């Protein structure tokens, strides 16, 4: 296994899949000559040429639609959103065309497209560029939604996403691009969609988190271990389809659950997880499911306010102590 950055792991996944399958191509703003706004597509133009690494105008709806059309006709486009916030301009293409084509054509046309790019809060990108965009997509039947937390997941899940015959929304994170981790170099290494992973085993409480929130939850778990609270960390990795079984199995073991998400909490991932935990593991719960979510406000630009809006290690630790009745309450 090699140690590489999250960015390099994505680049490697694209490279390997483009080498493996000539129908795979990438398309988006600045993906070719500029080698990607965040350098995920670095070196691809040079290796694969302008037919398979396509620079587009600033027109998300148009190039997403082109990608969907190409997918319907048998190619495997990987469309980059410079940031996922821009996918709002392509929402009709994604929700009404990509997600529904297979269904409305009676199974005649599948849409094997991947739409990828960074999303979620980063460092002072302000209200319009800091949104946890997954919530707009995982509600839609017909879409798969992936949020890879580590470099290894980034590679293994992007390869699975490209090989999947359904439209896959693949949301990375600006803050994770430079994160380093071990990544298998084996071109056959993939991580199936729909499989959660237990990142840390514990006995007292299950914390469900992904992306940057998982890293903060890890810090909270380290801190709580010193207080004698054993935290199990579960990363869903794929938000849709969700690996309910792994999460429920963990909650049945620990009897408590805390969900952490960066976005505002209302009707968020935490609501969904709290609902199915209650449905499937009610009699195993020793405490209500807690949610730690971003504040219900647009992301402020000011650094100090940005920090307040996003769940911190301390907020996560406090929620865990609450469900474990460790506050002396």
């Amino acid at each position: 296994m090699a140690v590489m950055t999250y960015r390099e792991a994505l680049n490697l996944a694209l490279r390997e899949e483009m080498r493996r399958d000539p129908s795979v191509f990438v398309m988006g703003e600045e993906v070719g000559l500029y080698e990607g706004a965040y350098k995920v597509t670095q070196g691809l133009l040079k290796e694969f040429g302008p037919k398979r690494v396509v620079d587009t105008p600033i027109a998300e709806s148009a190039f997403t639609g082109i990608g969907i059309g190409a997918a319907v006709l048998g190619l495997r486009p990987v469309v980059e959103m410079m940031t996922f916030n821009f996918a709002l301009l392509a929402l009709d293409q994604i929700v009404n065309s990509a997600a529904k084509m297979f269904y409305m054509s009676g199974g005649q046309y599948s849409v094997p497209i991947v739409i990828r790019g960074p999303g979620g809060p980063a460092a002072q990108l302000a209200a319009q560029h800091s949104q946890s965009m997954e919530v707009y997509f995982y509600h839609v039947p017909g879409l798969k939604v992936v949020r890879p937390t580590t470099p290894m997941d980034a590679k293994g899940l992007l390869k699975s996403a490209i090989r999947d015959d359904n439209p896959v929304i693949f949301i990375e994170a600006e803050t994770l691009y430079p994160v380093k981790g071990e990544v298998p170099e084996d071109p056959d290494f993939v991580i199936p969609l729909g499989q959660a992973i237990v990142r840390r085993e514990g006995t007292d409480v299950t914390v469900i988190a992904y992306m940057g929130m998982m890293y903060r939850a890890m810090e909270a778990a380290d801190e709580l271990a010193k207080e004698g609270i054993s935290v199990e960390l579960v990363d869903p990795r794929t938000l849709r389809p969700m690996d309910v079984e792994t999460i429920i199995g963990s909650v049945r073991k620990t009897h408590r659950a805390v969900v952490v998400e960066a976005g505002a909490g209302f009707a968020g991932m935490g609501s969904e997880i709290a609902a199915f935990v209650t449905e499937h593991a009610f009699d195993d719960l020793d405490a209500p499911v807690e949610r730690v979510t971003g504040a219900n406000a647009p992301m402020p630009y000011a650094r100090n306010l940005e920090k307040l809006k996003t769940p911190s290690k301390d907020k996560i630790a406090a929620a865990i102590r609450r469900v474990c009745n460790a506050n002396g309450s």
Partner: protein
Amino acid sequence: MAITKVVMPKLSEAMETGKIIKWLKKEGDRVQGGDILAEIETDKADVEMEAFGAGVLRKILVSAGEKAPVGTLIGVIAEPAEDIAAALASAPAPAVAAGAGAASSARKDTRPEAAPVPPTAPAPGQPLRPAVVSTPAPAVPAVSAGAVGIPAPALTASTAVATGRVKASPLAKKIAAQTGVDLRLIRGSGRIIRRDVEAATPATVTVATAPVTVAAAPVTAPIVPGVEYEDRPLSQIRAAIARRMPLSKAPVPHFYVTSEVAMDRAWELREELNALEGQPKISVNDFVVRACALALLKHPGVNASFQGESIRVWHRAHIGIAVALEDGLITPVLRDSHAKSLAQIAVEARDLAERARARKLRATELSGATFSISNLGMYDVTEFSAIINPPEGAILAVGSVRRVAVVDDAGLGVGRRMALTLSCDHRVMDGAMGARFLQDVKRLLEEPLRLLV
């Protein structure tokens, strides 16, 4: 201000009477809601009784050291100027069984009281009765059945609800139901959670208490050296049995009715059925379950629970089937046995028993029985008698099917016989009723085609 009647609270499922250990307030004392009025001794624990209403403790009707049935008026709280004659007039007649509030509280009340389960429409085909008949209640959460034991509903049309709802986590409720811990006797910090229940279960001191062994004194035991005895810690289930069985045997006046059943035809029929391809294997016990289910429908008086002020007669037969475990006994419930064929009973009973042994039963499958069967036939037991599992009214103990010499018109022959012993709660039924039920079970087993139609 309202006049507050203080009644003997019902603090456990099996509690019939409570004894006042002492009054902490005397007549004439001013009391606030939440003040401890008295200490009460129940079958399980000594419990402090809280005042609900505010005012002056005007009258103490049951003094320290005396006992009173659940629901009896034991005191009156009112303002000095108020006329409490009317309240006192009701003294001899026990008031409505009061719901205990949280851990320890007597429910007073001049407001109307009511049943924990709101009376609902009768099940189809079930006649309306003057006494309240709720639709099949075993469907209510396990916790409100055995373990938590919300007070018996004594109800008339005008009574309203006053349940003492216990706040506990679902897991705490499940564990309490499995171990027989009464959640109302536990004080949690806000919500009762697992560790509160476990703290209340003596047997949960599972801190690897190695058996305490005592070596025989060498002087006195020259023949067999070594260990003379060992003290084994109670398993949770053993502790629960130890706690619950005396709560049955002491307050429930048992009587026993025994009968011998000729099992020759049932035995033959069973062999024939079990030779059929594609059919589930049927045990003798499945025959007994089926026979009891049918007989219970015909004799609902046996399918009944004593409730203090009333007898609840069940119109569905939810039969508990005792399953032996290594460290105890558990009784999963075969619901609506009366509506199930022999084959269904066989399949479901086997599934319940297997999951009981694997400890995979859900709490709801362990509560809500209206009648139970305990079968020791596989241990070559001629006959035995079982202890009733309250609030059920009866339990049937089944012995082995033995080959014995029988005398009939043809002379001396060999037949198969099985002894059945019915343990009955005398508060619910009398000997004749138990005997008639048993007679019917016997007839169903001796003419076993009746079990198939």
